[in-house]
């Protein structure tokens, strides 16, 4: 249970799709002019991520991973098809988006009207493919967590687009320098929001664990410390080497 909660908050706040890894930026910038459309697209992203990440997790587990084909028989244990993951993941996503669109149109016309126009847009949204690729790269251990990961990253993306849309609606009344109007100021605001979100980095490090995503200054310090340590070690090595020679 606790790992579910941890993954949930981590994917929403710390590894936020938009602010930490810049996924889905194109639609994020293009569709964030009004809050209502932003909500529609955000909901569609949560939905599609929640469907495709678990599906791709199954694909990865039983088809693509090193030795994943072993359920076919022991002679298949040596196969590693992971180089096919890009093409399979994107095919799953494109097909799922089409399927979801058809199903939703058939059974819930009202949902289709609010969500439908955004669905085709989503097939080529980097956040969706990124969700599946990160799921693979981070080696999420089971289906439940994969579902959790998909939905919570979707929620993170939803929050981000909702926030920027609200800010953009307000900023229309401000006197922004002419060359920054529109795209430029949106970039800078997103950057500032990203810096704000960085402060969530320490959220899940209550125990004595080292922080998972240290802030920039600490990384720089840690880097320096590491370098000094390395130099010290090198010196030690040369010293001991000399001793050996002397002996």
């Amino acid at each position: 249970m606790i790992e579910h909660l941890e993954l949930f908050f981590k994917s929403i706040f710390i590894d936020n799709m938009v602010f930490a890894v810049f996924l889905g930026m194109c639609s994020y910038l293009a569709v964030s002019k009004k809050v209502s459309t932003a909500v529609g697209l955000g909901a569609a992203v949560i939905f599609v991520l929640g469907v495709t990440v678990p599906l791709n997790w199954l694909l990865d587990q039983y088809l693509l991973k090193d030795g994943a084909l072993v359920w076919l028989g022991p002679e298949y244990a040596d196969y590693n098809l992971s180089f096919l993951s890009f093409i399979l993941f994107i095919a799953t996503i494109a097909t799922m988006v089409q399927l979801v669109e058809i199903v939703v149109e058939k059974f819930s016309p009202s949902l289709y009207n609010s969500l439908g126009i955004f669905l085709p847009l989503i097939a080529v949204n980097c956040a969706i493919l990124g969700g599946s690729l990160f799921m693979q790269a981070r080696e999420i251990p089971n289906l439940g967590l994969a579902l959790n990961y998909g939905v919570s990253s979707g929620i993170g993306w939803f929050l981000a687009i909702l926030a920027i849309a609200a800010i953009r609606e307000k900023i229309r009344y401000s006197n922004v320098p002419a060359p920054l109007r529109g795209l430029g100021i949106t970039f800078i605001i997103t950057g500032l929001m990203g810096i704000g979100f960085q402060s969530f980095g320490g959220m899940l490090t209550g125990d004595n664990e080292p922080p998972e995503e240290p802030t920039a200054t600490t990384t720089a310090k840690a880097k320096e410390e590491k370098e000094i340590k390395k130099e010290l070690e090198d010196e030690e090595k040369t010293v001991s080497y000399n001793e050996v020679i002397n002996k």
Partner: protein
Amino acid sequence: MALLSKKDANLILDPLADNNPITIQVLGICSALAITAELKASVVMAVSVMFVLAMGNVVISLMRNIIPSKIRIIVQLVVVATLVIIVDQVLKAFAYELSKTLSVFVGLIITNCIIMGRFEAFALGNGPWKSFLDGLGNAAGYGIILVIVGFFRELLGSGTLFGFKVLGDPVTKTGLYSIGYENNGFMIIPPAALIVVGIIIWVQRSRNRSLIEEA
């Protein structure tokens, strides 16, 4: 440019400045910004996108008359995915460390909006040679922004370029560091990339007033 007619040359030169895919068309920001903390990664990313976009444009342009328009998105995705797999495997074979740094972002070239955008807007309606030039030009326009952002972030954030310590050594306090200069750790964190791009847009639009958006 004796090799190219003036029209063809414009296909390459336009996207470099006044029709830049990132700052004007707002395409392909997704997979780009996260990897610009180092110049080397930016250059590799730019070259990879150039390969995928130019080759993809040629392939789509050759097939443009036989692709049924209803399933063209899937056909395009398959073409891009195949090219990206090639790039990914080459990187893994010859630059393993770098491919670890780029991690999932190589795969995300597939959903880079520049690629789908150019396929839709250009390759489906033009011949292979023109499409090749268009791909080259747009990928170069994208690459230029990547390299500029990577240059400033690495120089100001780590004081290095391509991993060489151009400003001196921050630990032993040589070069610029001996007079009290410090690295700006702020430039290394991801949101700084957005702010750098914002500033690039600002500079470009102040120089060319016709690009300013009506709010």
